């Protein structure tokens, strides 16, 4: 009997091996394991055997059945995998075809620069302030130590609305408002980014432009603090290797006053077209708040001191993004605007 069982098993395994798809495999299963299958049939013969042989016979047949079943299962897996793979292969797409268009918005380069500066200074404890763009002569000039008749405030350089109102020519106009408003005289740390206006329009000047102003006032604020702060600011904006050069200068609202040059980030200070071969680019005005400004706005200059600086944001944005013509910033051609659509480095 054992031979017979072995014979059937061998044949079954052989036939399984020789199938080529799920259908043939199923035929083989019916042939051996179905209700009328060969292995099912042989099991029925067990009743004809003497009692004591029955267990070993039963186990032999079951073992053969298991072996055949497991072989069928293995083969079935193989066919199913092959079938899926074949189907997937038939679904192959061209991954190089263009993607579905997802419209991206963009942020104006000037506001990008403003946000970058805001983030830096907010992290150092500065408040970002906003002031009126339509200012009074008092705040734009007089309270900044620029009395009427001062050469630096000729009528023709500003957009006056009445003799007492004008479009602010500098974000510094907010300085006096902050000082006047700070009744408790706690430390002031503020920056004021925003639009400013001058009565000129040509290839390198826009009548509307943007500045950022910083003001720090407390009891022991010195030039060394100003220098340290500007070093952080400029290295953050223009790179760690940026060098600063302070040139004594003159502004009515600061004393001492400085113009601050940065080492040319295009040539690293060797001299190129951008820096007009000097290696330096003039970027900021800065200084120690003039005692008259403190006095006029409710501060005792013998107790308090402060520093202020300001810079043009249009130029910073142009430097940062390699924009060569200031007019591009205000033309708002969507082909220009759309370029500023990703994260800044």
């Amino acid at each position: 009997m054992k031979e017979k069982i072995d014979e059937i098993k061998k044949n079954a395994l052989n036939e399984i091996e020789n199938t080529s798809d799920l259908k043939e495999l199923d035929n083989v299963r019916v042939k051996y394991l179905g209700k009328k299958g060969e292995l099912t049939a042989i099991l029925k013969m067990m009743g004809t055997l003497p009692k004591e042989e029955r267990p070993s016979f039963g186990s032999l047949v079951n073992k053969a059945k298991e072996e055949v079943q497991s072989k069928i299962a293995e083969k079935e897996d193989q066919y199913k995998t092959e079938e899926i793979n074949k189907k997937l292969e038939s679904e192959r797409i061209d991954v190089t075809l263009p993607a579905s268009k997802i419209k991206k918005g963009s942020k104006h380069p000037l506001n990008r620069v403003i946000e970058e500066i805001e983030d830096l200074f907010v992290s150092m404890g500065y408040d970002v302030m906003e002031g009126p763009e339509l200012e009074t002569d008092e705040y734009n000039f007089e309270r900044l130590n620029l009395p009427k008749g001062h050469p630096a405030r000729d009528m023709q350089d500003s957009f006056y609305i009445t003799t007492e109102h004008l479009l602010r020519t500098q974000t510094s106009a907010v300085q006096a408002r902050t000082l006047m408003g700070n009744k408790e005289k706690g430390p002031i740390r503020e920056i004021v980014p925003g639009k400013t206006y001058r009565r000129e329009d040509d290839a390198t000047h826009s009548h509307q432009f943007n500045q950022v102003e910083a003001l720090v006032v407390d009891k022991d604020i010195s030039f060394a603090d100003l220098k340290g702060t500007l070093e952080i600011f400029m290295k953050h904006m223009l790179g760690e290797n940026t060098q600063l050069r302070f040139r004594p200068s003159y502004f009515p609202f600061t004393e001492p006053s400085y113009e601050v040059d940065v080492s040319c980030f295009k040539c690293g200070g060797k001299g190129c077209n951008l820096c007009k071969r000097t290696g330096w680019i003039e970027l900021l005005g800065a200084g120690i708040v003039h005692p008259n400004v403190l006095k006029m706005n409710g501060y005792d200059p013998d107790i308090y001191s402060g520093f202020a600086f300001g810079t043009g944001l249009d130029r910073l944005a142009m430097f940062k993004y390699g924009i060569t013509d200031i007019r591009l910033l205000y033309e708002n051609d969507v082909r220009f605007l759309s370029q500023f659509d990703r994260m800044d480095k």
Partner: protein
Amino acid sequence: MLLSINFLRDYLDIDKDIDIIDFSEKMTKLGNEYDSAERFINVDGLLIGKVEKCESHPDSDHLHVCKVDLGNKKVQIVCGAPNVREGIKVIVAPDGTKLPGGEIKKTIIRGQESNGMLCSIAELGLDSKFLKEEDKAGIHELDDDAPIGEDPIEYMGWNDYVVDFDLTANRGDLLSILGMAYEVGSIYDKKVKKIDLNHKEYSEETLEKSGDYKLPENDIAIVEEKIADMTEKIEKDKKLNFKLKINTDNCKLFLAKKVMNVQIKESPAEIKEKLMASGIRPINNVVDISNYVMLETGQPLHFYDADTLNGMLEVRMAEEEEKLTTLDGQERLLNSDDIVISDGERSIGLAGVMGGLDTEITDNTVNVIIESAIFDSVKVRRTSNKVLRSEASNRFEKGLNPNRTYIAIERACHLLEKYAEGKVIEGISKYDKIEKEYSKVDITVSKINKVLGTIIDKKDILDVFRKLGFEYETEEKDDKITVIVPKRRIDISIKEDLIEEVGRIYGVDNIEGRNLALPVKKGSYDKTKREIRNKMMDLGLNETLSYVLVNPEEAGMFTNNEHEKVEILSPLTVEKSVLRQSLSTALYKIYQYNSSRNNQDISIFEIGKSFYKDGNDYVEENKLACLMTGEYNLGLKTQSVDFYVIKGVAEEVLNHLGYEGRYSFKVDNNIPKDLHPGKSAIITIDGKSIGIIGRINPIVCKEDVYVMEINLEILNKIKTGSMKYKELSKFPSVRKDISIIVDNDTSAEDLQKAIKNAGGRVLQSVRVFDLYTGKGIPEGKKSIAFSVELSDSKKTFTDDEIAEIMNKISENLSKKYNAELRK
């Protein structure tokens, strides 16, 4: 300010082989930025030659073939200048010389060898404004004494450097060679040399010599500070026979002296060179001296032809509409803000700006009146802005040192005697109401160090003052220093000015930067603006940056603002003359610009201000505006922008800011006329109007363009709650549809509200999913279908409960809006 180093050498010892770039950089670090630093004539290798032989070129009717002696050799040079001839001494550019026009090379000219070029002045690169007729016509002829083989630039005294400084407005003192000498002296620690004012004086009647003008002191520091007193002593009892009348407060100091019998001729080469290097064209010896003294002292002078005057000088304000012909030949219309000089009968000069034509120095002038005066700087600036900005007006504007007013007039006398053989008449006409007190400024070493953030020793601070030529008083152990500020430094009046001087001379580079030692705190900024900007960017819109100034027609577009517009007093152009009253008007301009450049699909936004006038107050408001047209795609879908697209953008922004469920879009009679009346709405939150939205009126723009504008000032005042977690229902929600027929003008928003009210607490959402008019629906009616989501956090609805809620909803709809349920 052009600084001639040769000129500077008159008053300061400067190394012969100075490194001009190093010098200019040092000055820049002191705050005197330089634009350029060059040699006056930037040519090497020129030689003085003598034309030994000069023959006509065999193959030319105008060229000459010359044998030129260069000292150690003789060369042949072909020359085309009409004035070349045997015996003259010339400037030779030998083979290899680099001239501004190019390099000179040995060549053959029509068969004749030429080993260089004989030069004209123009070819040396001298500014064309200094060229005389003969310089343009031919080669330059040197005097007979010119040494053959030597450097002609050296011989002519043109071996000079010129540094162009861009000076700050407060350093008017540096608009003079003397001022520069003090400043440069502080760098190299050198003393300024004395200025020669000596001259003889004559009686006006007899022209007999009556004395010598000689100051008792020879030290320039003393002369500089004491000259007014010294003049007082010398001129005692001598009165010039010449009247002065000062009829305005705008002149505080006026001096006049007479010099007779001057001989008008060309100035000596040395003076001409210094003038040219300083950017001033030499005219004749007398006129040149007035300019020369101005350059030296910073005090502008005016010379009158004495014989054209009426025996007196008067300073007064001009009459309204008074006329004056200035020396450039132009008739000027004056007003009462202009200071004029008159001779008692007529105005003869605009004070500080320009002299009159009638009284100017001519080739026939014999007697000269010198005017040295100080006029009000603001008045001079106003007049010069109207008429002409000149070297003189520039100096008046910056403010003058009264001691130099005295020095300058005596210096002019000295030079007129020396170079024009003039006889200086004794006495001086004087009007002097200038404050004579010296300003003394107290400062402490600790204050200096506190402001600069340094630890500089007192000894080093005193050394700074010494280098600057400032006198000071201090006790050895004392922190306090009293500085006596010289009159020339009108920029110094308070201790902070002295701190700046210490910072300058000590050197900013020597001060270490440090970190602020203020308490740590979190800075603040306007988060809403940033969030809006980021949200709009997420929605695929491009941010713009537009102009606030627009033309008068555009200013009031897209707004019903009844207030007055804000106008610029003197605009650059009418296109930029009025402040916008809406932000949409600026975006509409940007749309037009892009449209004209064939950019069709535009979705832009901006946060910016608009302005109006309310009575006497000016109001400015932050707005968010958005403009959309053409194709818009978000996600994977593309669609043409219509009202509902821009409405979606508006809702997204408002939702993002936390106003979800609180805003409505309302049809209103108050829609600005620039919007399509049937496709626009007012946006409200809690019933309060915050902005407008809609299609631009086809009368304004025939393309399908939509705008939206929200007033952020109003919006920011409407509080929002914070973001809070809402418990998820454990029970399934039920979705039901309801379709109704209502009158056409019933708004979807009202119907939704009615559904919500009827649905109550369990109603989670209502959304329109179908809208239909036409076949099957009666005229004037529309079919509208809503999908309603119901859920309760406590239970699962039974069918009966659902039917009851839906019943309530339809009853409410039919009661309020006469809605007919569609089966």
